[in-house]
């Protein structure tokens, strides 16, 4: 049962509470924390620090080519902002399919990352973009952690209990690149990824694939890179055969689980399909072709 509640308006104050109250946990939109408690999965923390009024966490800007996001940046903002949609398209793809309009309006990128769900939508795009987060604690200043190594397991991160995610920095991708995030959707909204994939693909001048980064959702305890698929792509012609090969390589290396949403067999097979389609979308965008956001809708029924 929650005994203490604070709603600081400055970062300093929030960090101070997190520093002195070891039971304190931050809440931003509440879309994960409160739901978890109402379902009986995880009781509400003994002490809650509501960080949603901290103006220092609510910024977002493009600076020196990088996307610099305060932890309170909402999914709705990421889905709708033109710079994100054109420059970090996979992140817009992912943000546009989180939950419902209400979830997207209140749910934040900081919350999504720190909740460390293996099915989180925004993590895989941030991983392929090589994003870093800044964690800050009272008395220790900030440290930078790659998104790829932030989560250590379902619901677990490498952050200390007194650390707060303040900023996400997403570097600019190569000019000749395109990105996409696609999840397998049983229904067209209010979904949770059965499997998902983000791809960032850079084309060489001759149209072959110069570089590729792929990250996978909901096939492991955390969001993981798919090096086998990346290797399969680099140097290859950017065609359907290569996309399928990447899908097969990702599926071959994955060891997904059985659960109530899908069997391991189906997850593995769908991983091949989703990776192939995601790479296809990323390549098309690298070529300047228009693939609608979110790409998950476009992906349904694609021949790849």
């Amino acid at each position: 049962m929650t005994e203490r509640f604070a709603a600081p308006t400055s970062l300093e104050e929030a960090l101070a509470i997190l520093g002195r109250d070891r039971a304190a946990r931050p809440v931003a939109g509440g879309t994960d924390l409160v739901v978890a408690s109402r379902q009986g999965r995880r009781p509400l923390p003994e002490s809650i620090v509501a960080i949603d009024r901290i103006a220092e966490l609510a910024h977002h800007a493009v600076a020196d080519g990088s996307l610099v996001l305060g932890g309170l940046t909402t999914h709705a903002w990421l889905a709708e902002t033109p710079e994100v949609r054109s420059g970090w398209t996979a992140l817009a793809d992912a943000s546009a399919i989180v939950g419902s309009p209400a979830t997207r309006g209140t749910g934040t990128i900081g919350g999504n990352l720190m909740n460390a769900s293996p099915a989180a939508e925004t993590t895989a795009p941030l991983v392929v973009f090589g994003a870093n987060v800044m964690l800050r604690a009272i008395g220790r200043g900030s440290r930078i952690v790659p998104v790829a190594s932030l989560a250590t397991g379902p619901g677990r991160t490498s952050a200390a209990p007194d650390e707060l995610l303040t900023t996400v920095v997403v570097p600019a991708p190569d000019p000749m690149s395109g990105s996409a995030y696609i999840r397998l959707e049983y229904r067209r909204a209010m979904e949770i990824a059965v499997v998902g994939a983000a791809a960032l693909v850079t084309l060489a001048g001759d149209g072959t694939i110069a570089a590729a980064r792929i990250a996978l959702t909901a096939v492991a305890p955390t969001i993981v890179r798919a090096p086998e698929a990346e290797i399969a792509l680099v140097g290859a012609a950017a065609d359907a055969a290569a996309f399928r090969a990447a899908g097969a390589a990702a599926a071959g290396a994955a060891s997904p689980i059985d659960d109530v949403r899908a069997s391991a067999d189906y997850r593995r097979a769908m991983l091949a399909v989703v990776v192939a389609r995601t790479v296809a979308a990323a390549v098309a965008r690298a070529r300047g072709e228009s693939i609608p956001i979110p790409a998950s809708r476009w992906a349904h029924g694609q021949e790849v």
Partner: protein
Amino acid sequence: MTEGNAQHPDRDGSPPDQEPATGSGDGSRPWIRADGQAKATGQARYTADLTFPGLAHARLLLAGRAHARITRLDPTRARTLPGVLAILTQADVPDLRYGSFDYVLDRTLFARDVVRFEGEVVAAVAALTPEQAAAAVAAIEVEYEDLPPILDVEGALRPESPLVHPDIDGYAHDPNLDPSGNVAGRSTIVKGDAAAALAGAAVVVRERYVADMAHPVPIEPHSVTADWSGDRVTIYSSTQVPFTARGKTAEVLQIPEHRIRVVVTHLGGGFGGKCDFHFEGHVAALARAARRPVRLVLSRHEEFIAPDKVTHAMVVDLETGVAEDGTILARRSRILLDCGAYASDTPVLGQIAAMMIAGPYRIPDVDIEAISVYTNRTPAGSVRAPTGPQACWAVEQHHDVLATRVGLDPVEFRRRNLVHDGDEGPTRQRHEGDGAIDTLNAAADRIRADGPLGPGEAIGVASGWWFSAPGASGAFVRIESDGSGRIVTGAQENGTGAVMALPILAAEELGMRPEDFAITYQDTDTGPYDGGSSGSQTTFNNGRAVVEAAREVRRQLLELASVQLEASVADLELRDGHAGVVGSPDRRVSIADLASTAHDGALLLARGSGLPPENPEHDASACVGRLGFESFASPTFFCHAVRVHVDPATGIVRTRKVVAATDVGRVLNAPGATGQMTGGVVMALGNATMEGTVFGADGRQRNASLLDYKLLTTADAPEIEVVFVEHPASNGGPRGSKGVGEPPIVPTAAAVANAIASVTGTRVRRLPMTPERVWRAVTTGDDGATEANAPFGPSEAALAAAGIGRR
């Protein structure tokens, strides 16, 4: 307490809903439902919204395991916790066995000695706050000895199977049934000699189809509040069947019915999930023990596991013989219905399933058997068109397979075999009208007019029928002193608008406008008996009662008018709120004036009830387990045609368009009937591809949340074109109308299934046709019918250990 207003007995002094009904039945003016404004503004109070001085909060201790012996149950310590007012177990209520219907008296209010499904009620707590009630439930000391759960309907029929009810031979039951072993009931529909006819058929197709259990999922969870006054109790309940709730509460608590009042303020949907008797008895007993009003509201998780009303898991074996030209010659079938831990109304639903497997087709020889099998799953029952969607899904796929075998287009195959006016049904009832054919033609034409198919798209069709349900039902109609009207009815409004549309019927009889009437309803103290919002019966039965009462008021009005206008009754008419002499516009008197006169003498007041129509003549002499559905009264005929896209690589199916053509006899309220069609179709599409309960090997539900039990969202729902065909039934509801609420959910999944087969070239014989099952059928040819009844995947504990689950 309901006196003087349209809907509900608010306890907190808020103004009652009084918005009168407006509009017309034919859709020429918008139809504004009388309860609509209250619902649009948030003023409408549902059961969980009601508050009372001193209200206490109930919580149930549910078994949480599928099959176990209770070795110890001790609430002593829990009773000492702060705020606890009462804790009840079976030891605290009359120790009698009842049936939630009277087919098999197989259950007790609280578990006695053994729990037989996950959601079985072991104890109930009333406390000052919901948190205290939850703490007390957690503190009840209960120990179990787990017993092996019986989960496989075929295994349960084997002689060596353990029994869900070892004492079944001692249970009282309906005389037409012979429950024994794990069989709660067995019914057959038999005509002619199917075995002989099959032997002579040119083509015989044998198939198996398997359907999983699904949930009704009203958006309002169950809620009950009980409030005693002396030896009388008022029970506010989210029930679809107030009179059933009253009767069963009386039975289990041994109280006369007249001391129990069941009131439904507004009901947040039911779809059959709130038919039957659920928690009224528990809460009434708790409130009596706690000496104050007690409210129970189920959480969504509890809503999935505790109310024992889900659709039937079914195993359907089919064998049909056809001539070379595609004429159906004979059908044999065995249907196993998983009735879960308690029989409820499954035995009669088995008989309905058998009729659905026969369908509205000309089949000379029929031999269909339906067996209701006990398991340790959630008890199933009359969820919207019970057994209909599963049976139709099986048999209409079977018909497409037969069509393919004889080289016929699926529409042509149906045209050759569907019943026409005068044709004979499975027990030789005579069909009326060409509704079956007309709906097929309409649906097929409209879907083809929808433009050329894209890649990965196909059309599927499915036809079917559903009965109307004649039953006793009563209503009063009266004219108030100012000339406004009032209908007082026992009928229950579950959202469909069936009760809200009753003024249309009364208004037409009395030359008034629907908005001139108020309705007093869903209160067992006030309205006469009605069977509740089940079986699509409200308009069919209560509509007849209202018309009958209105006609008597009409007679009274005309008599009064004949004196005032000095004219013969035969020359009078009621129009535009007046009684007048036909052809003499000046000689008329307003109904308000007549009402004023009447309030100095004989009141304008009448009752309507009347005998329900008889079922059509038929011959069921060869059938056993006869429970009243040997023939279908005034059947509604329908055909749905769908345009579907399948992504074969993922198995994901998107339905892009549905044409729902239905012969409802007569459309009485076009907007209301259309709303039933669009709503039914979308519910059916959920059932088709997503909605199925996944059980663990331990017999517990694994997807008992709206995250993992997925309904279609707005973004998934296709365009729906609604077509009504009108062939009035000679022995139907008002003006030849037939049941409307249930039919639209029956054929959609079947049509989708046929479209899937058409796109992929392979058939999915497991419902729901989830992406994974479609994918598996496409990639391996495995149709899913032999998929183990036990679920795939590891237990929840293994999942938790692996650490992967929810977002």
